């Protein structure tokens, strides 16, 4: 095993471990922190089926953002959809023979990569152009956008400009999954792409990216509006 392979095998395991443990620890915290009072943002669903529907609208379509700010919605929604497709597409590296559905995505992935990059660039630009978001933006907001743009750019490069041998990538990934390390493709663009993704995974649980899991625990969105019908009691908030 080459030094590079050893290094990246370890790096990958560490990054995935940090991501999984960190993410689950945050989610555990959100899940176990009590909500002493009923605070759904009304009008709210009056039963749990309605809450699921509300969540689907928020997570699937960014409904509140849609009604709030159409410009940010377009940028944000395109970015997230492109990201989702890109993640699904990458699942092919985890299968010996690529499933048909994943192969189908490949037929239009050329657009997806560019849309992802374009949407990120648009969001970056919006941060700078609107005085209110420029005021709010922190270093990490820019760092994350740049990191994602670099990941997108190197991804596009490996695919269309300096083609990486995806068979080798697949062998490497399958090796990681099955705990019998294979050689990492030495292609520098791929190495950069892979490094950035691992860095993103490590940063994820400590960042605002926790909105991905956190939204499901937002009491204003996930609570049923039934305060008069059902008495809501949590451990620390006991009877007076």
């Amino acid at each position, binding site marked *: 095993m080459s030094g590079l392979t050893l290094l990246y095998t370890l790096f990958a395991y560490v990054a995935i471990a940090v991501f999984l443990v960190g993410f689950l620890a945050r989610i555990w915290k959100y899940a176990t922190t009590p909500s002493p009072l009923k605070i759904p943002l009304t009008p709210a669903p009056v039963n749990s089926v309605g809450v699921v529907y509300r969540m689907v609208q928020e997570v699937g379509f960014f409904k509140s953002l849609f009604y709030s700010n159409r410009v940010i919605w377009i940028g944000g929604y395109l970015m997230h959809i492109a990201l989702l497709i890109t993640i699904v597409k990458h699942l092919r590296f985890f299968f010996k023979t690529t499933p048909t559905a994943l192969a189908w995505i490949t037929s239009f992935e050329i657009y997806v990569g560019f849309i992802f990059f374009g949407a990120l660039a648009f969001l970056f630009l919006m941060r700078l152009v609107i005085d209110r978001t420029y005021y709010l933006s922190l270093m990490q907001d820019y760092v994350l956008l740049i990191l994602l743009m670099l990941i997108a750019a190197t991804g596009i490069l490996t695919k269309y400009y300096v083609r990486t041998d995806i068979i080798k990538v697949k062998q490497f990934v399958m090796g990681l999954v099955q705990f019998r390390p294979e050689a990492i493709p030495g292609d520098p663009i791929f190495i950069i792409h892979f490094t950035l993704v691992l860095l993103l995974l490590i940063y994820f649980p400590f960042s605002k990216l926790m909105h991905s899991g956190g939204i499901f625990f937002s009491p204003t969105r996930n609570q049923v509006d039934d305060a*008069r019908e059902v008495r809501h009691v949590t451990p620390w908030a006991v009877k007076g």
Partner: protein
Amino acid sequence: MAEEITTTEEKTVDKDIAALLTSPPKRAPEPTPELTGKIVKPKIVQGAAAHYKPHVAKPEIQEKLGFPGTLVENWQEAAVAKMRELLGKYKSLQVYMDICVRCGSCTDKCHYFLSTRDPKNMPAGRAELFRQVYRKYFTTEGKIFGKLAGAVGFDLSLLAEWYSYFHQCSQCRRCSLYCPYGIDTAEISMAAREIMDSIGLGQKYTNEIIGKVHELGNNLGMNEAALRNAIEFVEEEIEEDTGIPVKLPINEEDAEVLLVTPSADFFATPHLESLVGYAKVFHQAGINWTLSTTAAEAGNFGMFIGSYYHMQKVASRIKQAIEELRPKRLVVGECGHAWRIAYAFWNTLIGPFDMLNQKYPRPQHICEFTLDLINRGALKIDKSANDEFVVTFHDSCNVARATRMGDKPGGQFDIPRELIKAVTNKYVDMEYDTIRERTFCCGGGGGLLTDELIDVRVKGAMPRMQALHNVMETHGVNFMALICAICKAQFTKIMPKYGIPMEVAGGIHQLVGRAIVLGAKE
């Protein structure tokens, strides 16, 4: 030499503390925003609202509530410890600290930002004051990168900003509506105020009132004799007006309905007119009802300071009144934040209401109650009594975004409107973006209804005033119906500054009271 430096430092700190604890100097009133009929997204002006702050509560007010009398010596440590406690007690706070992505969706939604243009009055800008401290002491990112990552040590200047800007939030939740994750700045400002109270930095207006409720049972601080006098006066007025003796029973045992209403209804104008309306409804429907001197206050300012303890203690008077008087139903008068606490929190705080009639909502809003009577034909209504009015309705923020009326989501918008339409002939809604769940706060909620914040209140009302001005111009609206004691007090005070007569503001039950035909039953 070293000693000298310490002394100078100490002196500066003392001076900063003194500045923090003193009231803002009296200034000439700031100009009222112009009525153009438009609500525009302003360019930000940093620090534009930094000079507003409410009076700090004196030690005797603080100590009565169990808070330190004045800023404790180790306040920073104590504040961080309190923050840790609250992060463990409130899912909302913990989740909302982490998940804001600063997308900007909320930035043009707060009435205080739209009018003051101060970016720290943007919801995410306000929350940032809290998050800076959170990052510093509770996040890996903040501990490693510090200021670069937006983590700021809790110092006196930041505390001064907390005191100023967390008292420029009326906890109206409009930001939460538009946030893709539902982040509720009300939860954050409540936590901030709870932390400030715990280190001895309280707001005079709110904390004084909480003390009065604990002592005397109502926000106005009136004793039983004064309350009885006021009620007698109302009875005389009604009889003089209509020739019919309408009674407002007090402390009647075993009545059908116990009415809990904001104490302002007993004294203030136009609140009193709604009280007359409720009395006429009960009288004409022939429903045996009572007020209670124990529960002579629906309002509960414990919520404004985020104190579960005080909110529960204030609410416990309602439970006590139910136990004393054994009513079958519990009805709540016109008050926004009171309805939030009654509707959403009472069951948790003082429930379950097993002793009440299970056929009716527990508690029930007076609008639900009256509309139900009208729909069942229990009241004779003469709409033409209100023909001089073209009416619009201001959705109170707490009612709109934190409660419900009736069985269906959105009943809190439809029931008051149906009730208005049942007692008037001319009704017009204000602009789409300013009604129902999108409503703007009156500008005086959340503990801001105090004189020294008048400039903030006038400005905060701007979006509502623009929308009202529009319908006044286009539809001849001359009455804005309200269901909140704070809205009523706020609007009657600030509307004249916009050149709108204070008589334009009034309660829904003021209209109901005028339209009810007293006397012979059908």
